[in-house]
């Protein structure tokens, strides 16, 4: 069996790196490295996580400074070469949209306040590498953000819908996102961006393990892909 390896990218100001690392390595049993933002070599991993936090303090605009970090060049190569899966969570989602790897933008919540809560999201597409093993119709996941209000041009939205790339929708919209969008993926379904935090719902001690379903899907997908390739 080919073993799956993951990395968690750490930008200055990232603060969910250790949580994500814990979920992947201790709960999912995936060997996981931290990768510092100035890493500019080949990302030799099956899973790349852009975790949540406040990269560069979220100053000026969320994600904008992180997008210029050297590691993002490596991420772009990783995407072009279709090396593995990328998941951007919260601030990671914001960075992916700033970098143009996912469409749309995330702006201030309509309440203008930071929101920390647990929300329900509907899985809109069960065929993606991130949702194929999800067993529930909707997942309960924590959110914690000021800028989770997803905006996208009408044209691009139509394209997202036509290609079935809206992966998650909020059951009750907390932040004003267009069409209740909580997570979207790239055209080739190998990059997912989502505002809710699956890594915060990965451990039975914290009385919620819905997030595991997403990580498990990724592992299942990568395993089957490896088998197919070998």
């Amino acid at each position, binding site marked *: 069996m080919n073993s799956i390896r993951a990395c968690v990218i750490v930008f200055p100001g990232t603060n969910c790196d250790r949580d994500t690392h814990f979920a992947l390595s201790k709960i999912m049993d995936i060997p996981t490295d931290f990768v510092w933002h100035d890493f500019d070599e080949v990302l030799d991993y099956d899973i790349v996580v852009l975790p949540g936090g406040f990269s*560069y*303090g979220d*100053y*000026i605009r969320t994600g904008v400074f992180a997008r*210029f970090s050297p590691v993002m060049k490596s991420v772009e190569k990783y995407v072009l070469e279709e090396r593995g899966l990328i998941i951007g969570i919260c601030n990671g989602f914001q960075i992916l949209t700033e970098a143009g790897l996912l469409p749309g933008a995330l702006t201030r919540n309509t309440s203008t306040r930071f929101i920390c809560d647990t929300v329900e999201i509907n899985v809109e597409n069960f065929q993606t590498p991130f949702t194929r093993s999800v067993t529930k119709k909707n997942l309960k996941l924590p959110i914690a953000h000021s800028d989770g209000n997803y905006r996208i041009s009408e044209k691009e939205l139509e394209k997202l819908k036509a290609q079935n790339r809206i992966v998650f929708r909020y059951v009750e919209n907390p932040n004003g996102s267009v069409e209740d969008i909580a997570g979207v993926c790239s055209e080739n379904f190998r990059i997912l961006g989502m505002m809710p935090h699956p890594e915060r719902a990965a451990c039975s001690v914290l009385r919620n393990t819905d997030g595991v379903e997403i990580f498990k899907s990724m592992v299942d997908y990568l395993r089957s892909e490896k088998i197919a390739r070998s």
Partner: protein
Amino acid sequence: MRFIARIVVEPKDGVLDPQGKASMKVVKRLGYEFVDDIRVGKHITVEIQATNKKMAEKIASELAYKIFTNPVLEKYEVSVFEMKKAEVIEK
């Protein structure tokens, strides 16, 4: 008459500007060696009806001081222009 007031609010000299400071770090890293300082503020545009420019300036300055500026931390500049007829009608 209608006027446009442009209010620029910036951190006061000597007050820490975390956004400007973080911007500097990234800008330097991207190789812009000749950038010496960055201050991050905000820009507010206000439309005002007034009998003359002086009055519009007075109103804009008051708004700038009372609402848009935190006098503990920020300073402001106001510039007022008369709106052209065409602009007024468009609205």
